[in-house]
C-alpha cells in the first residue's frame, strides 16, 4: 500500500509540491530564524573572543545599575598604578571605550544614523591591541584618528582624508592615519569605531584622568583565575576584576539577551506561518481524500482494509512533510541572509559570517515539517474510514460530511469564547505566563471561527458575489455558486488568510492607538517650541549643547533633560528623569494628580515627584521617602513632593532635580534639550540659527519642533510596524498558496463542468473570470473575518491599557487597504489555476474520467 501512496504523489507532482509549499515556508522561517540567530551569536562570539585575545584579566567599574546602553562607568586612572603593583601582573594598560562617539560622514551626518552603535576608543599597548591595521598606522598625535575599515568604506574615507568626529565636546576634524580591522573580520557587527590617542579620547568624552577599563596580562605561571583573585584583593571595592574569558562570556551574554528576544519574536511569526500551513494541509487532504472517494472505494471492494487506506494517506502526508522539511531547511539557509538584509535596510546591523546550521536546527526542521503535516492530515485520513465499498463507485459520488451541524456550531462557539476568555485572562495577568495564554487563546479563537465560518460562507459569498453577479452575469453567478458549493472548503481556505490578516489588522490598530496615545500625552505635557535630541532620538548629546543654544538670539530658555537609570526603591534599572528646576517650568508640565508646576520648579536636592502608578505599586504617597541606588554606586534619598499621571511613560518612575546628575553618572551628557522661544521671536530665523549651530558644533544633535517630534515618534512606531508586516507577510503568502491549491483542486474536480461550459460557448476569458472571482470571493471572506478578528483582538489586548489612556482608534483606511490587498491577492492566486482551467481541452475535459 505504501507504493500506492508513493505512486499517487509522483502522479500528482504539481499538487504534491504545491501542498508542501505551505509547510516549506513555515519550516523555512523556523530554520531560518535559528540559522540567523546562531550565526549572529557565533559572529559576535568571534568578535568578542578576538578583541579579548591576549587579555588574562579585565578591571572595570563595579556596575550597580544595569543600564540599557551598556556604558561602563569610568574610574580613576590611579587604579592602573595599583594594578601594576599587584604580584603576578606582567603588563597592564588602561583604555577608554566609550559608546557615545560618532564618526561623521562627508555631509556631516553621524554614520550609522539610527541606533547602530558607534564607539570611541583609545590606543592601547601593542600586546593588548586586538586590532590590525591593513592600511596606515595607529594614531600617534591628538589630531589623528583611525576608523574601522567597514565604516571607512561605507563613507568613502581614505587614509589622509579629514574626518570629523563628535563626542561630548564640539565636533572636531582629524587626519585619518589608518583603518583598522578586528583580526580577519572587517566588521565590528555593524558598529563603527574611532580610535584616538588616550589624551584625545579623554578630552572628547570628558573622562580626564579616568579609564573605562584596564587590560591585564599575567606573568608566566599565574593563572587568569589566580590573577583575578589577587587583583580583587588589592583593588578598591568600586572596581572589579574578571578573567578575560569571563569578560568575553559576559559580553556574549549581553548580546545573547538581545538575540534571544529577536529569536522569540521571529519564532512567533514562524509559528503563525506554520499554523496557517497546518490549515492548508488539512484542507488539501480533505479535498483530495474526498476526490479520491472512488479510488478508495474501489480499493475497499478489492479487499483493502480501512486501516490500510488510512495508513496510505498518512504515509503520503509523511512523505510530503519530509519533502517540505528538506526544501524548508534549504530555503532557511537562504532566508537567514534575507532577513538580515531586511534588518540591514532598517539600519539594524548585525554581524553574520557564514551560516551556522546546528544539528538542533535540522532536527527541528524535520520534526516540525513531518509532524505538522501528518497531524494535519489525520482527520481527513480518518474520514476514509467512512467510505463504504461499492457505493463510492456510483457516478458522481461524493463523501457525505457528517451533518452534526449543531454539535459543530456549539463546539465552535465554545472554542471561540474560551479562546477570547483565555486571552483576556492572559492580558490581565490572571493566568501566567500571559503571553502563552494570549497565544493559546488566539489560536483557539482562530480554530473556533474557522469551524464556524462554513456557516458564514453562504451569506458572505452572497454579500461579495451579488455585485459581481450583477456586473458580470453568469461568470459572477457561477463563481459565487462554486464558492458556496463546498462551504467547508472555502471556509478553511479563507480561514488561512484570515489568520494572517487578523494579525496584520490587529497590529495596525494597536500601533495606531499606541502612536496616537503617545502623541496625545506628548502634546499635553511638552510646552517647548523646539526639542533637541540625538539623531537617533535616544542617545547622549553633549551637555555643552544647552549653553550654546541658550545664547542663540530669540531663545528664551534652554532646559536640559536627562533620562537616567537607577535601582529605584528596589527596582533594578528603573527609569527616571532629571530636570533643571530653574528652566523646566517654561518648557514642560506634568499631568498632575497631586501638586502643580510650582512643586516641579521648587524641587530641592532630595525632592522628587513620582509617577502615581509607580507610587501605587510601591505604596508611596506625598511625604513618603524612597531611596535610589545610582550607577556611581551612591544611594540617594528622596521625599515625594507630588504625583503625576504619565500614561505614555515619558518620565519613568520619578522626576528629580539635576543637581545630582553627577551621582547618576551623567554629568557631561544629557538626552534632550527643550527650548522655548521669546514672545514674538521669528521662529524661522531662530530655527535657522540653531540648525547652523548644531551642524557646526554638535552634528549628532537634531532639533525638532513639536510636529516633527510627533512625526518622529510615529515614524519609529511605523518602522517597527514595517518589520512586523514583513514577517506577517509570509503567513499571508502561505495562505495564498492555500487559495491556489484549493482552486487547483476544485478545478480538477470540476473538469467536466468546465468542459461543458466551454462546449456551450463560454470563452476562455470568461472561464478565467469565473476562477478569478471565486478566488476574490474566498480572499474577501478571509479578509473580512480577519479584520473583524483583528479589531476584536485589539479590543481585548488594549483592555488593560484603557485606564492608562490608550485610545483605540480603528484605522479605517488601513482596513480598506487590507480588503483591497485581499482582492489583489485573490486575483494573483487565481492566475495559475485560471489559466489552467481556461486551457483545458474541451473534449478531454468532457471525456475526463
Amino acid at each position: 500500500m505504501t507504493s500506492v501512496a508513493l505512486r499517487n504523489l509522483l502522479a500528482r507532482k504539481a499538487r504534491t509540491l504545491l501542498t508542501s509549499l505551505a509547510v516549506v515556508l513555515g519550516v523555512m522561517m523556523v530554520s531560518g530564524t535559528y540559522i540567523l540567530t546562531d550565526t549572529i551569536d557565533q559572529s559576535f562570539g568571534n568578535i568578542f573572543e578576538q578583541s579579548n585575545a591576549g587579555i588574562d584579566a579585565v578591571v572595570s567599574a563595579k556596575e550597580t545599575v544595569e543600564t540599557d546602553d551598556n556604558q561602563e562607568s569610568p574610574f580613576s586612572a590611579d587604579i592602573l598604578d595599583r594594578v601594576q603593583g599587584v604580584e603576578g601582573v606582567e603588563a597592564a594598560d588602561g583604555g577608554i571605550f566609550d559608546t557615545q562617539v560618532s564618526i561623521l560622514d562627508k555631509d556631516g551626518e553621524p554614520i550609522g544614523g539610527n541606533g547602530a552603535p558607534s564607539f570611541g576608543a583609545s590606543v592601547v599597548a601593542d600586546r593588548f591591541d586586538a586590532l590590525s591595521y591593513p592600511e596606515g598606522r595607529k594614531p600617534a598625535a591628538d589630531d589623528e584618528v583611525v576608523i574601522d575599515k567597514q565604516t571607512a568604506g561605507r563613507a568613502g574615507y581614505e587614509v589622509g582624508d579629514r574626518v570629523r568626529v563628535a563626542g561630548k565636546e564640539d565636533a572636531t576634524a582629524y587626519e585619518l592615519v589608518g583603518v583598522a580591522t578586528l583580526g580577519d573580520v572587517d566588521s565590528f557587527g555593524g558598529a563603527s569605531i574611532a580610535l584616538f590617542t588616550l589624551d584625545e579620547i579623554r578630552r572628547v568624552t570628558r573622562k580626564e584622568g579616568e579609564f573605562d577599563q584596564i587590560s591585564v596580562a599575567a606573568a608566566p605561571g599565574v593563572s587568569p583565575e589566580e590573577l583575578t583573585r589577587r587583583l580583587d584583593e588589592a583593588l578598591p571595592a568600586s572596581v572589579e576584576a574578571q578573567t578575560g574569558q569571563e569578560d568575553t562570556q559576559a559580553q556574549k551574554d549581553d548580546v545573547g539577551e538581545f538575540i534571544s528576544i529577536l529569536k522569540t519574536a521571529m519564532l512567533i511569526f514562524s509559528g503563525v506561518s506554520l499554523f496557517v500551513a497546518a490549515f492548508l494541509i488539512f484542507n488539501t487532504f480533505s479535498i483530495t481524500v474526498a476526490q479520491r472517494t472512488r479510488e478508495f472505494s474501489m480499493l475497499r471492494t478489492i479487499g483493502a482494509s480501512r486501516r490500510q487506506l488510512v495508513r496510505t494517506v498518512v504515509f503520503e502526508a509523511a512523505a510530503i512533510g519530509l519533502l517540505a522539511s528538506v526544501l524548508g531547511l534549504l530555503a532557511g539557509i537562504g532566508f537567514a541572509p534575507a532577513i538580515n538584509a531586511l534588518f540591514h535596510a532598517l539600519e539594524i546591523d548585525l554581524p553574520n559570517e557564514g551560516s551556522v546550521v546546528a544539528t538542533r536546527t535540522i532536527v527541528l526542521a524535520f520534526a516540525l515539517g513531518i509532524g505538522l503535516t501528518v497531524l494535519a492530515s489525520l482527520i481527513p485520513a480518518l474520514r476514509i474510514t467512512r467510505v463504504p465499498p461499492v457505493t463510492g463507485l456510483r457516478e458522481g459520488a461524493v463523501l457525505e460530511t457528517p451533518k452534526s451541524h449543531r454539535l459543530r456550531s456549539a463546539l465552535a462557539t465554545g472554542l471561540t469564547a474560551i479562546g477570547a476568555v483565555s486571552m483576556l485572562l492572559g492580558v490581565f495577568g490572571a493566568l501566567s505566563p500571559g503571553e502563552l495564554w494570549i497565544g493559546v487563546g488566539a489560536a483557539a479563537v482562530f480554530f473556533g471561527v474557522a469551524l464556524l465560518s462554513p456557516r458564514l460562507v453562504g451569506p458572505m459569498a452572497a454579500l461579495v458575489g451579488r455585485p459581481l453577479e450583477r456586473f458580470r452575469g453568469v461568470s459572477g453567478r457561477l463563481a459565487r455558486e462554486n464558492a458556496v458549493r463546498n462551504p467547508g472548503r472555502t471556509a478553511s481556505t479563507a480561514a488561512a488568510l484570515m489568520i494572517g490578516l487578523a494579525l496584520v489588522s490587529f497590529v495596525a490598530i494597536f500601533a495606531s492607538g499606541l502612536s496616537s496615545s503617545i502623541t496625545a500625552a506628548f502634546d499635553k505635557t511638552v510646552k517647548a517650541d523646539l526639542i533637541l535630541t540625538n539623531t537617533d532620538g535616544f542617545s547622549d548629546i553633549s551637555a555643552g549643547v544647552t549653553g550654546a543654544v541658550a545664547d542663540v538670539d530669540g531663545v528664551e530658555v534652554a532646559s536640559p533633560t536627562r533620562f537616567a537609570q537607577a535601582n529605584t526603591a528596589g527596582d533594578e534599572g528603573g527609569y527616571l528623569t532629571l530636570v533643571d528646576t530653574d528652566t523646566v517650568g517654561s518648557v514642560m508640565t506634568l499631568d498632575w494628580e497631586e501638586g502643580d508646576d510650582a512643586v516641579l520648579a521648587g524641587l530641592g536636592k532630595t525632592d522628587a515627584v513620582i509617577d502615581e502608578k509607580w507610587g501605587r505599586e510601591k505604596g508611596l504617597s506625598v511625604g513618603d521617602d524612597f531611596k535610589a541606588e545610582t550607577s556611581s554606586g551612591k544611594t540617594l534619598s528622596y521625599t515625594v513632593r507630588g504625583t503625576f499621571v504619565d500614561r505614555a511613560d515619558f518620565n519613568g518612575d520619578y522626576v528629580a532635580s539635576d543637581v545630582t546628575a553627577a551621582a547618576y553618572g551623567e554629568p557631561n551628557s544629557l538626552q534632550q534639550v527643550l527650548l522655548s522661544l521669546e514672545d514674538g521671536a521669528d521662529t524661522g530665523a531662530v530655527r535657522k540659527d540653531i540648525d547652523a549651530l548644531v551642524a557646526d558644533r554638535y552634528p549628532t544633535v537634531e532639533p525638532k519642533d513639536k510636529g516633527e517630534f510627533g512625526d518622529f515618534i510615529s515614524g519609529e512606531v511605523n518602522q517597527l510596524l514595517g518589520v512586523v508586516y514583513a514577517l506577517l507577510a509570509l503567513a499571508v503568502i502561505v495562505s495564498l498558496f492555500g487559495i491556489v491549491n484549493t482552486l487547483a483542486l476544485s478545478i480538477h474536480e470540476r473538469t467536466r463542468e468546465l468542459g461543458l461550459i466551454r462546449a456551450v460557448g463560454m470563452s476562455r476569458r470568461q472561464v478565467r473570470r469565473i476562477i478569478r472571482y471565486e478566488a476574490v470571493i474566498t480572499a474577501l471572506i478571509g479578509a473580512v473575518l480577519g479584520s473583524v478578528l483583528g479589531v476584536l483582538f485589539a479590543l481585548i489586548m488594549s483592555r488593560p491599557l484603557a485606564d492608562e489612556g490608550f485610545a483605540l482608534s480603528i484605522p479605517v483606511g488601513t482596513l480598506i487597504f487590507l480588503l483591497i490587498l485581499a482582492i489583489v491577492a485573490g486575483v494573483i492566486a487565481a492566475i495559475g489555476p485560471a489559466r489552467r482551467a481556461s486551457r483545458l481541452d474541451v473534449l478531454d475535459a468532457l471525456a475526463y474520467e
Partner: protein
Amino acid sequence: MDSHLPEHIVTATDVHRHFGEGDAAVHALDGISVDFPRGCFTAIMGPSGSGKSTLMHVLAGLDRPTSGSVVVDGVEISDLDDKQLTELRRDKVGFVFQFFNLLPVLTAEENIRLPLSIAGRKADPELMAKLVDAVDLGDRLSHRPAELSGGQQQRVAVARALISQPAVVFADEPTGNLDSGTSEEVLALLRRAVDEFGQTVVMVTHDANAAAIADRVLVLVDGRIVRDAEAGSAERVHDLLKQDTVA
C-alpha cells in the same frame, strides 16, 4: 441572409480524423463526406468504436479533422481559431451529451438559459415559454439538476441546446443512459424541435427505436459511412443495420 440560405446546414467533405502516429494510428474517421439538410432529423448508428462520437465532435467544432473540410451554416470551420470556434459553439451549435449535461450549481431554468447568459443575451420570451412548455418540468424549473430525474435532466439539456436557436443540434447518445419510457420523452422533444421550430438535429444512437423517430439514418462502420437511407420504422432500421453487418 435569408435569401440565400444554404440548402445544407452542415457539409463534410472527405473528412479524416486520425489518432496517434504510424502503425498505432487509429483512423477514427476515414474519408467521410456527408450533407445535413436544414430541418432534417438525422440519426447516426454503427458499432461501438466506429467513429460516431468523433464525427459529431468534428462537425460541432469540438475537435479538428486531420484533413478535409467541414462547413457549418456557411462557415468553413477547419480554419477557425479558438475564439471563433467558441463563438461558433455559442451561436450556431447546440450539443447534448450522454452524461453530465448540466451545471449542478444552477437551477434547471438557469441551465436552459446558460448559453445566452454566457453570450450576455436575453432569451426570447416566446421561445422560452415554448421550450418550458415542451420540457414539461412544471414547478421543477427552479430546482437544481440533482433534484431532477435523468429524463428531466436530459430534457433540460435539450432545451438548453435549443435556446440559442442554433443552426444545428448535435446529440451524442442522449438516451443512452435512460430507460425506454424516459427515452421517448427526450426523443419526442427532439422531434418536436424539428417539426415545430424547423431545427436541424443530428443524433447518435444505438437504439433502433430511437433511430426510427428520425428522418434519415446514417450507418458508420470503421470510420466510413456504409448506409444512408430514410429511417422509416424500427424494423427497417434493423434491416439497415443487418445489411450492413452482412456487407
